[in-house]
């Protein structure tokens, strides 16, 4: 029987079911943010590291505006925010994360009272981008990127410099001294102490601005849950070293939001316990993430939010299991052994410094080689992110290190939240070329 290739079902990945619950938790989180004004709640807008346990302990709502930009892009609803930012004067080459979110800030500022507006051409539709409630205060906690820091400086100006703003500064983990290595050396320890001291200042600031007492017991409690959840996540990530892998990088992308900004509580722990259980179940019952896993890859770079599902299919179609990623595996409370839940500030500072874009190029390359080893990878896909210099820094060096270690590499053009920078044809051609190279290499080895 001949098969019509056009109608042949494409082998897609078997995504984890348990991550759907995360989607619900995250949607609830945003609904809570949207309704904050009617509840009279104080809202902090913040960017960068997961400082949410501090807000939780002072009893205010935390709105990770950057994550909102990502959410809009993932839902393909970034258009109105980006149009607004263009109208405001932002150049298209500027970080599209910042552009999207600043577009939301302009919308929130314009309509602080009514909270929802309609844009020309979209009459009758509720524009999600306009639903962020105006902030009561800002905290900037962006490591590794000057744009990330400057972004809130601009938000502060957009709101006429009338709201309190606190900034945490992080040194890039550059590694001047011979003892410097990943989470090692005096520079690392010194940077951790420097950031810890700033977190304590942030607590003073929050107390001052809100007039409330910081609840240390609450912090210990939420860090207890976060540590548990983080431990489960890391264990589950490790399980994906199995061949074939039970879950892919794209499943882990779905779990970023929960670990990044949901409250530290039992629900968070349960979520990661369920994810881990599903992965264990898959291993026990030989259920792979891909029906025909043939190649194993790492994904380097920041996420490309408008294309997550599309990319997942693109790789799955070619039997490529993308297993690890810089964004998913080297971020978000990923070294839980550093957390002391009874005295959490130093461990929190360490994680904030461990933003995946706050490393020097050699460390990026070395972490990649480390992942290649532990997950048995054939190659690395680099997402060259047009408007994110921070994620792009060091990629070409890491690629050279990977090639020297015998890994195949490819680079594709995309962006964090601006779909117009994608070059589909280039991705296809380069992916084909890389897979051919791996095949050749395997044949030569056999």
């Amino acid at each position, binding site marked *: 029987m001949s098969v019509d290739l056009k109608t042949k079902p494409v082998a897609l990945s078997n995504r984890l079911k348990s991550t759907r619950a995360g989607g619900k938790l995250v949607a609830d989180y945003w609904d809570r943010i949207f309704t904050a004004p009617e509840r009279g709640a104080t809202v902090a807008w913040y960017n960068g590291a997961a400082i949410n346990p501090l807000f939780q302990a002072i009893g205010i709502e935390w709105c990770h505006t950057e994550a909102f930009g990502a959410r809009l892009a993932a839902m393909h609803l970034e258009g109105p925010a980006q149009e607004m930012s263009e109208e*405001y*004067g*932002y*150049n298209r*080459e*500027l*970080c599209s994360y*910042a552009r999207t979110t600043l577009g939301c800030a302009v919308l929130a500022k314009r309509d602080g009272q009514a909270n929802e507006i309609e844009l020309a051409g979209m009459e009758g539709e509720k524009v999600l981008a306009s639903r962020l409630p105006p902030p009561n205060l800002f905290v*900037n906690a962006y490591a*590794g*990127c*000057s*744009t990330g*820091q*400057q*972004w809130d*400086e*601009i938000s*502060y*100006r957009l709101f006429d*410099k009338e709201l309190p*703003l606190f*900034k945490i*500064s992080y*040194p*890039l983990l*550059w590694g*001047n001294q011979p003892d410097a290595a990943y989470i090692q050396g005096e520079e690392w320890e010194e940077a951790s102490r*420097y950031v810890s*001291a*700033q977190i304590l*200042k942030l607590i003073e600031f929050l107390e001052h601005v809100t007039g409330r007492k910081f609840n240390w017991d609450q912090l210990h409690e939420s860090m207890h849950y976060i540590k548990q959840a983080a431990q489960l996540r890391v264990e589950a990530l490790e399980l994906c070293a199995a061949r074939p892998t039970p879950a892919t990088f794209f499943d882990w992308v779905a779990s970023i939001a929960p670990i990044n900004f949901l409250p530290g509580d039992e629900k968070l722990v349960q979520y990661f316990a369920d994810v881990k259980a599903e992965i264990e179940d898959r291993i026990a019952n030989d259920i792979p993430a891909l029906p025909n896993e043939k190649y194993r890859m790492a994904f380097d770079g920041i996420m490309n939010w408008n294309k997550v599902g599309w990319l997942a299919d693109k790789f799955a179609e070619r039997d490529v299991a993308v297993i690890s990623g810089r964004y998913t595996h080297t971020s978000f409370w990923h070294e839980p052994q550093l957390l002391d839940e009874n005295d959490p500030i130093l461990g929190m500072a360490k994680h904030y410094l461990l933003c995946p874009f706050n490393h*020097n*190029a*050699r460390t990026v390359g070395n972490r990649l080689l480390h992942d290649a080893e532990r997950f048995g990878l054939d190659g690395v896909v680099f997402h*060259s992110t*047009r*408007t994110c*210099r*921070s994620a*792009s*820094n*060091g*990629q*070409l*060096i890491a690629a*050279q290190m990977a090639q020297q270690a015998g890994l195949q590499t490819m680079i594709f053009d995309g962006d964090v939240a601006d779909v117009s920078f994608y070059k589909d044809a280039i991705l296809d051609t380069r992916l084909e070329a890389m897979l051919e190279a791996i095949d050749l290499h395997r044949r030569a080895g056999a």
Partner: protein
Amino acid sequence: MTAATDRVNIIVSRLEAVCSDYIAYVKGWKERTGRKAVGVLPMNFPVELVQAAGALPVFVQESDEPVTDGRNLIYEYYCAYSKSITDQAAKQWLDLFDGIFAVDHCVALLGALDAMRFAMPSRLVYLAQFPASMDEQASVDEVDKRMRELRRELEKLTGAAILPEAISEAIRSRNEARQIVRRLFALRRDGAINLSARMMQAVVQSGMIMDAAEYLETMLELEAALADFPPVHDRKVKLHLSGHFCHAPRPELFDMIEQCGAMIVDDDLYTGYRFVSTDVAETGDPAIALRDWYFQRNVNVPCSTRAQKTADWEGYLLQALERSGADGVIILMAKFCEPHMLYYPELRKTFRAQGVPYLLIETEHEGLALEMLRTRLESLVELISKRRAAEASGQSGIKETSV
């Protein structure tokens, strides 16, 4: 041409020659003195520390050469400066420096620095990062620490102790040169000297490269020669040039602006007033004085690479326009310069609100389309001329601010 004009032209040509081949200058200096040279990155490096160690501090300059070897290390969508310095490192041109040091934090600059470290394994490439947030005591303390660290590392590199007296001496000589250059800016602003933008840039940029004593001597000579330099006679459209961080705009661009019937009366370019805006205090502990200089520079001429709640670039620009009487602003933005792109709408908002005519020009490393720019520049000049004419006849109708 008068003898004074001749003298000035000869001095400025000497400075232009230094700027057009800074590598040759450094080579010559090293051969002549047998001492070390340290490449430093903009925009806030305290060069006095290097000078006090007996070495030559040189701000690594953008090169005119196309970016080739550097493409293996840095993507195309980086600013011209970061691409060019990476390329120069990849071509091994920067190996003539005994070390490369940086204190700034722009994300593109740090990417370039890391690529340079990879390309120059035989050289120390050192980052003593100053926090860019200027509002906190923690930042002040951190800069203190970083200054001490810099001093220690420079001592190691040069093998010379950096004594407080030597730092003070470096501060004094550099202050004196800065003061002369600021006087030249004031003379230009007042129309007392007809110094072209190309010449003005050579005066500042050469100070980023040359030996401090030689530079000071040249500035003294230049100031004396300028005493008889012709003043400005005609009533051309007066413009302020703003922005362009880290590297020098192409002088041909300045020539084009001037050919379109405008004159540059002031600027806040990095290779302009921004660089010389602030002296280092000459009393007290010189290390503390250098630290305070870092914070004061951003108050004197705010920069969007810094985060400071109380410093507003747009406010500074309005004051600068008031002081110089400039009719409008040309914003020069290096393509892909994140800190500038992010701040630009704040500038635009202010100019629109205040009715200040402005034009945004993006520059690139290769292929500046001068002829296309000419039309836009002519439109700006025309807009301003019409406004002037309307104002002279008592009308106040022209509200447009951009072309």
